[in-house]
């Protein structure tokens, strides 16, 4: 099959939706002219669709988000690019009190097709204001969906679904994934929300990881298998909301052990949520306590000497998982 990058895969899904449906528009800073997408996702789209569909904005995230909500109320399907996921803080009211609540508060009279693209994650020294993974923060808000593709194939398929999700979708991308390549079909396809994938089958432990951490978990699983005789199953939830607990539960039933690996902060993280559900419902299946392997509770530093200690890497995942046996 044809190999393309994660960012090309995202662009293909957006481009195809825009070609078929003139209500699909993009709004954001530097997405059309200027940089044409800081991570290259919207490259070429301005030339193809023009300024009415690829809408460059001033630096004004709060109003970008509000404007996208307004346009969505009238039937548009905006895809907002927030240049770095960290800047979502500047549009928090739009997300928390407006977008997330439209469908409920209007008793379903209105609902939003609205994708908020969020390039997150540490990018080799991007520091405290440009590196955060914030998925878990938003998992706590009813009314939002959260997608977190870990590879080009999922990026394209999840984006196709997100554009028509009929609810606001926070689409968390990862800086370290944009240039990674993978097999992606030319034709359109959609990956359903709420259906996890098994990135690696195994029998001794279940590792749940999302976004960039899937590749870290897979590398750790290889080492665990080759050097330590531990056969790990790696589950990629693909969307954190809705979360496919069934696939996770089936795996835990088989392996009797659970670790959650994430780049999000440790406290109240994805692991806290999944871990509490598993211990509430499936405690009897577990042979040992659940392990949360996450970014330590520290703002993301700049130099590699600190980043390597704060954010989980293969070495730490292997070490912490070995302690479970």
């Amino acid at each position, binding site marked *: 099959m044809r190999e393309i990058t994660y960012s090309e895969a995202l662009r293909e899904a957006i481009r195809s939706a825009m070609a078929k449906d003139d209500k699909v528009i993009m709004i954001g800073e530097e997405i059309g002219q200027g940089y044409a997408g800081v991570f290259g996702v919207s490259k070429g789209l301005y030339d193809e669709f023009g300024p009415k569909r690829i809408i460059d904005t001033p630096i*004004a995230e709060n109003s970008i988000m509000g404007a996208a909500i307004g346009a969505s109320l009238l039937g548009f399907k905006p895809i907002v690019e927030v240049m770095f996921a960290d800047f979502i803080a500047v549009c928090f009211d739009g997300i928390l009190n407006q977008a997330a609540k439209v469908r409920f508060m209007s008793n379903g009279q209105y609902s939003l097709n609205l994708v908020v693209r969020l390039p997150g994650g540490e990018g080799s020294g991007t520091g405290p*204001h440009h590196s955060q993974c914030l998925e878990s923060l938003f998992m706590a808000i009813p009314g939002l969906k959260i997608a977190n593709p870990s590879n080009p194939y999922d990026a394209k398929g999840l984006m196709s679904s997100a554009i028509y999700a009929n609810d606001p979708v926070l689409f968390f991308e990862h800086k370290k994934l944009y240039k990674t390549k993978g097999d992606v079909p030319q034709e359109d396809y959609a990956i359903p929300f709420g259906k996890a994938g098994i990135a690696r089958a195994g029998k001794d432990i279940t590792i749940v990881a999302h976004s960039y951490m899937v590749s870290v978990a897979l590398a750790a699983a290889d080492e665990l298998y080759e050097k330590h005789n531990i056969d790990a199953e790696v589950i990629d939830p693909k969307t954190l909301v809705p979360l496919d607990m069934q696939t996770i539960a089936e795996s835990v039933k088989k392996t009797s052990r659970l670790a959650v690996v994430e780049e999000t902060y440790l406290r109240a993280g994805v692991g806290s949520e999944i871990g509490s559900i598993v211990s509430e419902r499936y405690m009897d299946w577990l042979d040992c306590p659940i392990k949360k392997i996450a970014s330590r509770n520290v703002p993301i530093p700049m130099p590699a000497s600190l980043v390597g200690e704060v954010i989980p890497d293969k070495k730490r995942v292997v070490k912490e998982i070995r302690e479970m046996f």
Partner: protein
Amino acid sequence: MDYDQNLYLTFLEKMYLIRRFEQKVYEFAERGLVFGSTHLEVGEEATAVGTLLNIKRSDYMIATHRGHGQELLKGTDVNAMMAEMIGKATGICGGRVGSMHVTDASVNNLGAQGIIGASFPISVGVGLALNLLGQKDKILISFFGDGATNQGNFYESLNMADIWKVPVFFVCVNNLYGMGTAYCSTCNIEIYKKATFFNIKSDYCDGNDVAAVYNKSKEIIDYVRTKRLPALLELKTYRTIGHSAFDKHPYRTKEEIEDWKKKDPIKRTEDILLKNGTPKEKIDKLKKRIDTTVDDAAAFAAQSPYPVYDDSLEQ
């Protein structure tokens, strides 16, 4: 103002320090030693020098993401600045945060922003605190870019600055672009005019003419300091390099860049000194001294260790 050779020599010395510092940071970036991105001030040196030569060490400052010159002029040690650029433990913030986030409490530099626009309300709060504390000898100088003035909190903050009467000197370094976007394509109102809507004293000048920046700042700082009122100064300038170290800036024409290079503030100052009889040897000697300072800082930074993680960082 009468011509004052010593003042012009100071202008030159400080601007040249910033230029050499930025060139060294660029070299480090090329060698892959600057971890994240770094935003250099090349071409804009007169804005930091002309304003900050009128600011006391006891005054407060908030810098921008493009703030190395602002931070150096406020008084931060060159070695500690350079070490921070490449994330070394001897850096002014322990090497934790790097180029974009320099804070130095010893010179009342409250920090630099990675979040565009976040500095405006914080500046109002600093002014409020100075008022509440009755510290009538101090003011805040708050730097920001042209692009930042499109954030909503700019307007909220100007309004609050006006009604609370805060002693804040807002300085806009208008380099005509925010990343790849020309300011004129994002707003139809000139920046200095925006403050006049709130009845805030507001002015502009050629940001590449260091003497003009110096004189205008002196007058406005006197006003902020004595009247305890906010004011804004827009400095029109240009970064002759990319937005960040590796930005090839294709969104600007060669002609535009070359035109602005002709208005280089350092060259201009040197020409004035030479025309008024300062011997070239004196200028060369001054530059040599700065070269040594910056080379020494680079060597210090390079030799310093990286910070080591310990659990006490957890919060």
